[in-house]
């Protein structure tokens, strides 16, 4: 696994607190009626959407990578910046990343009717569909991960990164009901989120340093 893929996984894992806050309770509410299999399918649907988005962006930016090596490095700098912003967001130090979510809003409007339609179904297919719709909710965390998918250089690796990211979020989302209460309170605590924020900032800075070094070397 290369460093970029690792960054995607890390983002997912570090986001546990965020995911619990935003969607964790919802997975729990759903879980009251759902079997664990439905829950798994639901999350699979969500991750599928992530992967699809990753593939889309990966493919879109491949041309950029082919056009110039430098272009990819600038993209990496952007990704590093997003990672730092995400870190600041986690730690609660600067919440600017919220504005990013506005990008996804019109897109979400298009999908919303779909969500409505999927609501009544109890079959596996409708559960997967609901999960897939869920995957397109505006979320700063997802967008930061997508920036890594964008610079992956191909559609397939973009999908791979986003899948790893999705897997990283899985423990928090899927195991909401199973995690011990103590662990949950730890994951949701401000201290944990700050530490994770620091970790992401560190990772982002590190990526930026490497990118700058490459930029100067080339």
């Amino acid at each position, binding site marked *: 696994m290369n460093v970029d893929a690792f960054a995607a996984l890390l983002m997912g894992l570090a986001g546990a607190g965020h995911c619990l806050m935003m969607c964790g309770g919802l997975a729990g509410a759903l879980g009251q009626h759902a079997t664990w299999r439905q829950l798994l399918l639901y999350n699979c649907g969500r991750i599928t959407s992530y992967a699809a988005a990753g593939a889309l962006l990966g493919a879109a930016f491949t041309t950029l990578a082919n056009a110039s090596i430098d272009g990819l490095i600038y993209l990496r700098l952007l990704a590093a910046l997003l990672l730092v912003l995400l870190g600041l967001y986690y730690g609660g130090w600067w*919440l600017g990343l919220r504005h990013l*979510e506005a990008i996804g809003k019109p897109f979400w409007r298009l999908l919303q009717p779909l969500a409505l339609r999927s609501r009544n179904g109890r079959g596996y297919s409708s559960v997967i569909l609901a999960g897939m719709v869920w995957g397109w909710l505006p979320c700063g965390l997802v967008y930061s991960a997508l920036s890594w998918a964008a610079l992956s250089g191909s559609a397939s690796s973009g999908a791979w990164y986003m899948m790893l990211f999705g897997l990283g979020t899985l423990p928090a989302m899927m195991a909401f009901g199973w995690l011990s209460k*103590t662990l949950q309170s730890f994951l949701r605590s*401000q201290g944990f989120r700050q530490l994770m924020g620091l970790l992401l900032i560190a990772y982002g800075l590190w990526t930026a340093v490497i990118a700058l070094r490459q930029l100067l070397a080339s």
Partner: protein
Amino acid sequence: MAVTLPEPPAGLCFHCLQPLPNHGGYSVQLQQRDYAVCCYGCQAVAQTIAEQGLLHFYQFRDTRNPLNVPLVPEELQRFDAYDDERLQQQFTRDDANTGVRETALSVEGMTCSACAWLIEKHLAPLPGISKVTVNASSERVTIAWQPQHTKLSAILKHIAELGYRALPFQSASQEHDFKKRRRYFVTRLGVAGLATMQVMMIAVGLYFGMVSDLDDSLRQFLWWMSLLLATPVLLFSAQPFYLSALRSIQAQRPNMDVPVSLALLSTYIASTYATITDQGEIYFESVCMFTFFLLLGRYLELLARQRAVSAAANLIKLLPAVAQRKNGDDQLEYVAVADLQADDLVVVAAGATIPVDGILAQPSAAVSEALMTGESRAIEKRVGDTVLAGSVNQQQILHLQVTATQQNTVLASIVALQDLALSRKPKWVENAESLAQTFVKQVLVMALVTFLIWTWIAPSEAFWVTIAVLVATCPCALALAAPTAVTGAIHNLNKQGVIVRNADVLTRMSAIKTVFVDKTGTLTDGQFSLLQHYQHSSNSASEHTLDTLLALTQALERYSQHPLALPLQHLSQTQLDVEAVQVQPSYGVAGQWQQQSLRLGSLAWVRQWHPDFKPQLASANVFLASSTAVLLELQVGDQLRDGAADTVAALQRLGLNVVMLTGDRAELAAPIAAQLGITEVHAHCLPADKLALLAQRQQQHPVMMIGDGMNDGPVLAQADISVSFAQASDLARSAADAVLLRNQFSALLPFYQTALRSQRIMRQNVRWALVYNIAILPIAMLGLITPYFAALGMSASSLLVLLNSLRLYR
């Protein structure tokens, strides 16, 4: 689906419960009402929830602080049982005046001072809570609360919400807990020690092997062996560090275990990666050694703390749980001490430990209060005297009337005091701790900076240099420096019969320049007796023997109520009858004996007969005279305490200015002062004068005041350090910073010296830790040390600090 949505918390996002942005955020319409949310994400999620008919999620979710987590129902029920009043009596103490109830809870799962902080902060806002002190060393929480506002079960639940299990403290189970805790460390230490030895041997082999061109497959085998051996160390032995790190992160006060855990985990992961891919470097020996030495330090600290704590708690354990009660028809029956009521009559066999506080219901008894005061001599008790639980009945069978049992006994209050002293952090400790905390944050930042810089310069080195920075600069020594010294000093003082109520005095002691000493009851023992007498050999016809004079004095004094008369009522075996006795208030007594008029009393009283009389004894204060001559001069006074003169001299040698304050006349104070070598004496002082004198001196420098806790209350309160004597039974009433339990003035000296010594050791520790940490930082950042040496340096520096503190236990 109509659902009543809960009121959104003010200022927080309705969905994710995070603070709203400054511009007020966005809004979402749920059930025809607008709710504020923080971002588009929350807006979209909330809408979706509504559309999918899942609004009951908002209804049932936990909207409180994310630190709060609901408990499972069985646990809730178990806590409710503790609300039973009868049960609570066994482990709580009520303050009759304020209605405040106090109890000690033992808390499982506490790992560090961050836990203490977390619990304190979390409990304080509950209604009716008046005090929460958490003692991280004994894992105990002392809580004072008003039972009518908050139930005990609610408090227990609140602690449980943080992930700790709190139960009423029972000293019987403490020993067991201590043992468990020790075993917890010993097994981990054992695993780490064994593995470290093996891995070190391999590391040495590898090191020398590299020089002499080691076979590649053999090297690979040794790497795998190291990985195998280091794994249990990382997963099992190092657990305490991870737990403590997690807790401290949760409390937002990252402690030294955060960099420790980071370093351990990343070193292990990187070394494992190197082993699997068969390239790079391995540092398994650093993982093992670091864990081993850190554990060793924690274990030693644990032992020291447990020693300090159990010394106090063991006292209570010695109390019998069963007592013999005399019931209505004079039959003896065995009952649990917990079931005894006030005014029950209890019988204690000779040689047995007295189970309750009570009033002696027989003419006399001899008991030893060694348990409380360390004074092993038997103490005479008379009918109506208080006898304390924990004292040992020395002679015959003893009857007493119960006044207090269990948690309300004086013994329990002594233990509570010692506990309190251990749990209250002196400012120095707090400073050192907050310094260590700042350091942790800086270490993390510096590690990041190092990593980034080295990535720029030499990416392949960056990782190991960063690990070295994390390990070498971990402020473990700094965090250990002060608390270990304070615990040691308090333990040491307790052993010497000095109870320190406020550990702050340890750090204030060095500034003290002047010691104010009260005379009566402090320098002297407060018991009046005949100190000396002088017989005038007059020329008159009726020459009296000394015995006759003493017998006359005794006979006359029996009519007087004056305090000085009391010690003069038992002077002679000879009984003489005096007649026509008249008491003249504030002068003395007059009477007739064998047709002779006699006067006994003050100088003024006899001078009415003998205007020119000059006493032979300068300090005489009682005179016996006939109408023709003065017959006898008596000096009644209180005796100097044992060792008072030596102690005063020793204090003066240490550079302290000893000042005597007394309400007595100068003539009485001066000889005592001279005897003790005290030059500055303020006699005839009212309490207000004492206060003014002390306050005036305080303008120049901090002062210590030693007085009798009962009468000198305000003066003691004004002093920077106050010390009082107390019989064990008065302990609860005295408010001094330190209490000398053995009733020896000389205990002042070890108190002074131990306090100075503890501060010296604390200073040494902190200074050493700072010097080490600041010096090692640039060296580590320059990449001059390997993780291996970093671990050695850090471990050595914290063990050094620990051993230095342990000196105080001796």
